[in-house]
């Protein structure tokens, strides 16, 4: 499976993501420059973490107007796989490929820590090697990860099983304390109706090898590869 990692000015997890895909999962991987229009025939586009355009205006708000995002949106519309991690998730929300929006973390702090995540839907192209209810330990690093969607949108998302990951306790319980950024419904990761676009605030590429202290992020990439 060929992966393309988009590089915006201000991306800072592009190299980590590239290394995970190329060296850990041994997949052909290329960088995609934000000013280009060529997706280089990749099978999956990854929008990495970072602070594209300094997160000025709103996180992801300027990056969504990058030339390459027009191609990414068309690629997603044709059913191509798109994965947005952290800042990449914020870009997918701003461009409307995923429903909802992000506001500042409830405690107004930049949160850089391991969190526990409950896998809500293990039937997706991004999670099929996992099991429903499984608890994953993956780090987060963000300021604006407080997910919001209007009530009617959230109802639709629940009904269509678009909520993929929720912040939880190590045993899988949902509590106010484990919902570290105050997200509505403790939402940490979602997908689109069609199931080919996923966004998540945690960083699976930072939990892909033992040296990182967790291998739980592998489920996202291994699921994609299983379907390829």
């Amino acid at each position, binding site marked *: 499976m060929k992966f393309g990692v988009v590089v915006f000015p201000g991306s800072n997890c592009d190299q980590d993501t590239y290394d995970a895909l190329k060296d850990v999962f041994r997949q052909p991987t290329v960088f995609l420059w934000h000013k280009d229009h060529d997706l280089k025939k990749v099978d999956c586009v990854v929008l990495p973490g970072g602070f594209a355009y300094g997160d000025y*205006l*709103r996180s992801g*708000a300027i990056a969504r*107007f990058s030339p390459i995002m027009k191609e990414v949106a068309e690629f997603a519309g044709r059913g191509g796989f798109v994965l947005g991690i952290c800042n990449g998730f914020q870009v997918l929300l*701003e461009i409307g490929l995923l429903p*909802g*929006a992000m*506001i*500042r*973390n*409830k*405690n*107004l702090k930049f949160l850089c820590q391991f969190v526990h995540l409950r896998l809500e839907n293990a039937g997706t192209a991004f999670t099929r090697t996992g099991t429903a209810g499984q608890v994953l330990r993956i780090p987060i690093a963000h300021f604006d990860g*407080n997910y*919001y*969607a*209007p009530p009617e949108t959230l109802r639709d998302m629940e009904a269509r099983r678009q909520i993929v990951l929720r912040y939880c306790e190590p045993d899988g319980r949902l509590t106010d304390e484990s919902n570290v950024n*105050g997200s509505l419904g403790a939402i940490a990761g979602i997908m689109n109706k069609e199931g080919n676009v996923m966004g998540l605030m945690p960083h699976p590429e930072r939990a892909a090898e033992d040296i990182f202290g967790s291998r739980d992020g592998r489920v996202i990439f291994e699921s994609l590869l299983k379907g390829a």
Partner: protein
Amino acid sequence: MKVRILVSLKTSILDPQGQTVKNALHTLGYDRVRDVRQGKVFELDLEGLTEEDARTLIPEIGDRVLANPIIEDFTWQILDKA
């Protein structure tokens, strides 16, 4: 023409920054402050625009770029017609 656009979180959405400012004001004894909402201000300098043009253009810019309509509302006013 100079236009000022004020973007703020919708009233239905909790504003954690506004809440923190409110709490700070209460700590300082300003207990008559009932609520605080924090927002962003943009001042645009526009060339060769009539007021009628502005009524089309500004809402478009606001909806498309300056505000995220899912979480934010905006208001605007003309500061200077020249």
